[in-house]
């Protein structure tokens, strides 16, 4: 699905947080959304997901204005994974994945015949895809951080979306869980936009990166072209060296002490 931002601005509490952002999400690729804390990554993701409505400019989804699409239609095209969240009530893993089916129902009334069993089958398949087959009856709150994020990916897949938006999905995860989550996301072969903090994760897992600073896009391109020592110093105020990863040949960023 084609998703693009055209001169999108958004603010809260009298402060401009996203300031005239334009870029197109490359189809079928994994795009990293980078930038320091407060650069507007999460806000831009919310705008791209249609959860927030731009104050100026538009987000276009397949040439239609995203916030003019019916809400459930939008939720069938785009799935959003927030930073780590906790449910307010005790839910099983299967309950969580089934939340992804909500946009596919009428929103009112009782399920149609066979709908419940079809949904459950799909949810079980989604859990198998994320490597959590057999976890259906487990209580969500008792899972590890990495498992919880995988369940959320399965929930997103149950939405049968054409585009996946991830807000710092690797927060609070150990290295192994970070790598396995990003490799899972790549294996889905869905158009993906992921806000990331770790420049090295972005350099090794993203096809494309967009760098935000103070609500504006300051760079947009392949990681090798964008993640230069000059850019890292300008945006993050940190001196860095860009090396080649000895195994993959991808950019590897090493930081100097301040």
């Amino acid at each position, binding site marked *: 699905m084609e998703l693009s931002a055209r001169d999108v601005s958004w603010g809260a509490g009298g402060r401009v947080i996203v300031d005239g952002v334009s870029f197109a999400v490359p189809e079928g690729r994994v795009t990293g959304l980078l930038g320091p804390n407060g650069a507007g990554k999460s806000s831009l993701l*919310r705008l791209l*997901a*249609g*959860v927030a409505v731009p104050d100026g400019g538009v987000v276009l989804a397949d040439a239609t204005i995203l916030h003019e699409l*019916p*809400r*459930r*239609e*939008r*939720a*069938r095209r*785009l*799935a*959003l994974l*927030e930073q780590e*969240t*906790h*449910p*307010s*009530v*005790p*839910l*099983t893993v299967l*309950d*969580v994945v*089934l*939340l*992804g089916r*909500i*946009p596919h*129902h009428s*929103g*009112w*009334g*009782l*399920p149609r015949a066979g709908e419940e069993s079809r949904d459950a089958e799909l949810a079980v398949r989604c859990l198998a895809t994320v490597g959590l087959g057999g976890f259906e*009856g*487990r*209580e969500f*709150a*008792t899972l*590890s951080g990495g498992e919880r994020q995988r369940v959320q990916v399965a929930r997103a897949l149950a*939405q049968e979306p054409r585009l996946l938006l991830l807000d710092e999905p690797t927060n609070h995860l150990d290295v192994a869980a970070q790598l396995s989550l990003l490799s899972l996301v790549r294996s889905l072969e869905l158009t993906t936009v992921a806000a990331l903090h770790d420049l090295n994760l972005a350099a090794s897992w993203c096809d494309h990166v967009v760098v935000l600073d103070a609500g504006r896009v300051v760079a947009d391109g392949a990681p090798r072209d964008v993640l230069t020592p000059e850019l890292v110093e300008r945006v993050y105020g940190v001196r860095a060296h860009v090396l080649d990863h000895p195994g993959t040949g991808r950019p590897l960023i090493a930081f100097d002490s301040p």
Partner: protein
Amino acid sequence: MTTTTDATTRRARVPLSVALAGLAVLLVVSVVVAVTFGPADVTAAEAFASIAHHLGLPVDAPDRLTDAIVWELRTPRTLTAAVVGAGLGLAGAVMQSLTRNPLADPYLLGLSSGASLGAVAVLVLGLAVALPAAAFVGALAALALSLAIARAAGSLTPTRMVLAGLAVSQLCAAATSVVIFWTATGDSYREIVTWLLGSVAGADWGSVGLSAVALVVVGLALLASAPTLDAFAFGDTAAASLGVHVERTRWSLLAAVALLTGAMVAVSGAIGFVGLVLPHGVRLVLGAPHRRLLPAVALTGAVFLVWADTLARTVFDPRELPVGVVTALVGVPVFVVLLRRRGSWS
């Protein structure tokens, strides 16, 4: 995290249809049995005969006195308890989901304190208004004030709702105290306390009708909104990303819960703990998705309050306890047990 046992990580669920059928049978049996308890001896057969006779079944009614006790006094009272229990269970479950707050109850937005103020005004000042009407108006006025305060601070977030409700509750409680302090005499004082603690002692067929209409209308609307309520489990943004219109849904469901709670408070005062504790218990046994939770919590609330009221009117016979005292006495230990069983619940 490392010491979780299989019992806490994996919950076997009772099939919903079995649970609902079981609870429905339990409710019918509870009503008939509860009607036999009381100062005058009534057998289950007489109770059944009287109820069946009035429902138009070809059964002879028992003698006139027994028939009047069963049909005019105990049946409407027991049914009111059942309907109020069901309504409070539903309202509590929905309020907890909408605010994502496990301590939310049906009275969260100042509903009970507003109703109390309305009722006390009638009891003490002798206003020529029916008590249920005054309580209902008081509840809705308190709700409107809470929402206005929450809305004035920005969009209607759960935290703002809880804080605004707290402020309005305190205000109404203070106003109620002032009214009581200045005007109440011994007799009206006792009546007021009974009402404040919650009681279905004064229930008649009118109370059954009023509360049942509210329960059926609002209950069906809530049941139809079950998937939307599920979408709030991970918060407002998650709900919005699943295609839910968050603000509009929260306003309309709050209005529905307020009408339901207002009707319940109008017939029974503010009965505590039913709407707070029962939803948690039902979630633990049957699961949190609302298609399962809502019908089950309504039936459980009905059964619970029928027995709580039966205890309230028989334990210290011939004196009665307000049923709210019984629900708290039973509810608090149950709450403690639930908290202990769910160590991971933070």
